[in-house]
């Protein structure tokens, strides 16, 4: 699974929250981090390899590589930052372009739902975009651990669905979080 999204939206926080169950307070931009976690989704165990990627534009050149290697994608935006929502769109286009087919397992995620008061992107906007892309949509909070496990369970489900369930290890070989 590759986690993508523009800078500072909480990709790493989401990933780390999922993997270790803690919320990281530090505000360090990621270049690339790799995590592995075993989870059981719908009573079938799977090993999830998560690639937490750099959101900063500076590393945009790496994105193709991530996408090429990723099987499922979590597109994260910060719902307190309209721009991050705008940045998501070209990323999805890039995924489609690199993967050359439409049905890539993708989840659109609005992070930082705990900052409801500073919200800039409404749920409806996110939902509409997800509908347009035909992908699930979630609003999460890495801080309060809202929907984090659900998110990763969902992406596994998506990938299982896409990668044919007859495979033994249905988890994506690389899950990148940008």
């Amino acid at each position, binding site marked *: 699974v590759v986690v993508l999204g523009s800078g500072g939206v909480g990709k790493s926080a989401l990933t780390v929250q999922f993997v270790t169950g803690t919320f990281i307070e530090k505000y360090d931009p990621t270049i690339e981090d790799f995590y592995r976690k075993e989870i059981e989704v719908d009573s079938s165990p799977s090993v999830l390899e998560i690639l937490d990627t750099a959101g900063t534009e500076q590393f945009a050149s790496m994105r193709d590589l991530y996408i090429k290697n990723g099987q499922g994608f979590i597109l994260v935006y910060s719902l307190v930052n309209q721009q991050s929502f705008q*940045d998501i769109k070209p990323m999805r286009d890039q995924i489609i372009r690199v993967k050359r087919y439409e049905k890539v397992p993708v989840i659109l995620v609005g992070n930082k739902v705990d900052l409801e008061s500073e919200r800039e992107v409404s749920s409806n906007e996110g939902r509409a975009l997800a509908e347009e892309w035909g992908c699930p949509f979630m609003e999460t909070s890495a801080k309060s651990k809202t929907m984090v496990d659900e998110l990763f369970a969902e992406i596994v489900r998506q990938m299982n669905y896409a990668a044919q369930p007859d495979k033994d290890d249905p988890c994506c070989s690389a899950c990148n979080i940008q």
Partner: protein
Amino acid sequence: MLAHKQKKAKKKRVWASGQLSTDVTTSEMGLKSISSNPSFDPDYIKELVNDIRKFSHVLIYLKEAIFSDCFKEVIHIRLDELLHVLKSVMNKHQNLNSVDLQNAAEMLTAKVKAVNFTEVNEENKKDLFREVFSSIETLAFTFGNVLTNFLMGDVSNDALLRLPVSRENKSFENISVDSVESSSEKGNFSPIELDNVLLKNTDSIELALSYAKTWSKYTKNIVTWVEKKLNLELESTRNIVKLAEATRANIGLQEFMPLQSLFTSALLNDIKNSHLLQQTIAALQANKFVQPLLGRKNEMEKQRKEIKELWKQEQNKMLETETALKKAKLLCIQRQDEYEKAKSSMFRAEEEHQCSSGGLAKNLNKQLEKKRRLEEEALQKVEEANELYKVCVTNVEERRNDLENTKREILTQLRTLVFQCDLTLKAVTVNLFQMQHLQAASLANSLQSLCDTAKLYDPGQEYSEFVKATNSTEEEKVDGNVNKPLTDSSRTSRYGPADSLEDVVRLPDSCNKIEEDRCSNNADLTGSSFIRSWTCGMVSDSESTGGSSESRSLDSESISPGDFHRKLPRTPSSGTMSSADDLDEREPPSPSEAGPNSLGAFKNTLMSKAAVTHKFRKLRSPTKCRDCEGIVVFQGVECEECLLVCHRKCLENLVIICGHQKLVGKIHLFGAEFTQVAKKEPDGIPFILKICASEIENRALCLQGIYRVSGNKTKTEKLCQALENGMHLVDISEFNSHDICEVLKLYLRQLPEPFILFRLYKEFMDLAKEIQHVNEEQETKKDNSEDKKYSNMCIEINRILLKSKDLLRQLPASNFNSLHYLIVHLKRVVDHAEENKMTSKNLGVIFGPSLIRPRPTTAPVTISSLTEYANQARLVEFLITYSLKIFDGSLEPQDVTCSTGVVSPQVDQSCPSKPVISAEERDSEHSTKSLYFSSKEDSHTADSESENFESATSFEESERKQNTLEKCDACLIDNKELESSSQKMDDICRTTKPLALKFDRATNNIQRHMPRTKIRPVSLPVDRLLLASPPTERNSRNVGNVNSDKFCKNPTFEGLYRKDTPTTVCSKFNGFDQQILQKTRGQQCEQNNLTAKTAMIVPSALQEKVTVNIRVSGDHPNSATQPNTPVISAREVSERRSSDSCPLALARAPRTLQPLHWTTFYKPRTPTSNVRGTEERPASPITAVPPSTARTPLSHVEKSVADSDSTSACPLQPGGKPKENSEEHGLPDVNPTCQRPRLKRMQQFEDLEDEIPQFV
């Protein structure tokens, strides 16, 4: 025609600037020139002039009245006069009759009425009347505008604005009299007459009431209509906006489509208009139409019912009285009858009495008596009835009078009511249509412009553009700067509307040339091709001039051929280094030609802050808009001073402020070769770097995620465009901080070659690996805090520092300077890491790949590049963390020597070759530079030159001999010399301000001979700031500001002053004293404690530590930190102790990594070096002490602040602190009192830049 336009322009400015004393001669002259125009009758003109003069006089009277005595009556009388005159003028000259003017007059009236005259006194007079004055000015301005437009015959727009005279007059009356009654004058009757007429009518009340009823019904209908219509409009507007936005997004993606910019602007117009319309609708729905009218209607209903009730009651009463009267009358008649009966019966009884004889007489007598009594009674009753009747009659009479009165009253009431209602109705109707009209007018204007623009498009133009673009993408990458504009101009010449023979003849020629040019330009951009493209641009430029003149004549704009010719010779002269495009842009309107336009029109357009700084006039020939880069045709404006051209609609977003001189052409900035950009800047630091960095430092240092969070794409693009278009003049303050960061990042990212050149990539990466290695070691060693390992670490890091310095020295000066500037800026960002959460590690990650990257290859990106990214990030992090050391050291060769000397044997042994190389390199660099400056050198230069050489040679020698002692000597001497000179300088600067300029030169010279001078202008103040923690940072800025304030006429001075003295000092501190200090301190805690105690008697103390302290204060000419430093050092010592005992404690501080480096770095030295360092000192304290002690009081003032600062901001830098403190203190000491807003920093930077050219 031309002349008169000019005159008008002048006059208009007179109006606009509020100098109401209209230059009569000017206007007359202007008018005379008009009189040649057949449509104007000279007599009429004369009359008009007189009227205008009268008007201006009245305006002046009003102003004087307000100025001199603030009597309400006087002012009101003057105002009345003014309005009267204005009205008469407007009546007389219908052409001047315009909504604008009327609005301005209304505004003025309202403002004057709003003034509370009881509160007026001398102090608040200005405040109170400010609005009044501004509205007076607006009125004058508007009048001038209207007049100008009228005189120019440019009434096409104003025809729309002109209102039917009758309406105008009426509403105008309202302004002056402003009472309900006045509006009744429009009727045939005066109010009383009206009432009287109605009174005569019997059912007048009913009539009036029924009228009122109908009125309210009518109003209801109207309101319903308006409401429904507004709703419909609102809905459609929303749809239009949606549609427009969607379409805009769609068509924005398709490049090279015909009329694309036109449609985009049309869509934008749509959106804008829709928003305006929505506002209008909202206003109409709220307080402009619906609500007041409904309110009025309801009130009317209520009053009408009340009156009706009243009237009914009155009528009932009347009826009652009348019935009473009737009854009384009947009674009266009845009684009369009875009386008659009684009377007749009495007569009969009398007759009987007479006829009958005496026997019966007695009986009869009795009867008679009875009858008589009856008769009398009846008579009495009759009289009573009569009385009653009379009373009733009077009652009725009274009642009738009452009724009459009531009727009159009711009628008056009703009349007032109706009038009021009418007034409201009128007002709201005026609102309604006026707003709608304004809406429509702006729409019409924009549509007109769109139409005009569309006419100008030549079919196939974009297609050819497209083809060209696809062909030349490769070229453009290399020399887009030249080629793009070229294409532009060639396009105009090829496809422009020019059909004249001339153009046709020339056309193929220029095309060929262009093609040729492109071929020659293909890969490399040599100087010759530059020139060629430029000359070529000129050719095509003159052609496009022809084209544009043609189109102008199409515009039915009469342009004299002379004018056209005048322009041609001007064109070539305007060329600098700029591109053809630039010429094309500038070519247009000579000031005389584009006559003054209706400035009133600008008034209506929204203008950005930057746009206000320009003096705009109408543009009459098509060129390119500086804001949106689209073609401007008719709706364009041009600044009179900087010749900036842009769309009227773009004024809203314009961010380029007026530079009051010709705006330079577009600069290719993003993705341009760095050397090209750097060439233009004297210090080699691209302006964009400076402007962005300083802006961010001004306002966003504490913003969370600064540089990390991405900016808005469209805004960023716009800013990029603006920066390319107007570089130095962009009003960056209107942009979001993240956008600015994004621009800076984008710039760095798009550099074809990063600051750290490709050829050095490998070396730097090796370095990064070493850093990584050291860091890892550090990690492992963190647990066991043995001193030996710490010292090893120090050595390691020092080694890397040295290496990095050497590597950096291999960079070209401009690269080095820019990198230095950026790193120092980033360091400042890191200093606020607690707030912005951007540590040097974070910034390293973000800027890593922008600053250092491998030569781009065609090979696909692989995972391995990830490690490279990490290393890049690590390197940048390292640079930021140790920016003080790295850049200060390399700034001053002496310091470098010094520090290397101190670092000593180990370093040399570990990598013996590199320092030698670097020394040689430096030497050669130095010599070339000194050659370069040789012409300007004076005795000063010579001195310090030798100094430099000395240091360099000494360094080399020491390398060879491994004799650290000697080295130390040499550098100490150097330091001393420099120090004293800088001190002198400083003193001079402070004491002899008038001589400042001269000393500038001196400082200048001194700077010049130093090998790395070029770096300094920017780096030095930066360094200083960097060292200081936030509050002190401001203080040091204060210093700069004060200087600039004091020597505002001499910006150079400030820059120099700030740079020179502090820098030399601080670099010295860093390089030399720091370390020595460190050593001594690390050596013995006891001693440190002692020093703290003995601090106040420093001069007399002979202990090592004390000398160090003195040394510190002495080094800095201004620093009076003596009392200070010890205190801090004491604190440090305690800290130090704790860290010694438990090094992990350091880690809990917010900035974990860096401080750790620092501590390790400054850990104990070998005792020998310590001794050596102190041995040399005795001499300096003696000289240094006097100034420092003298200034001690000042430092006390600052002490507390600095103390808290240093402890809080950098608690973990025991070594660096004392020095920093001394510096921090020293600077504020110069001028401790001044406080300075951060905003002025920008100015400082500008000053710096101003001053820079002198060096190079």
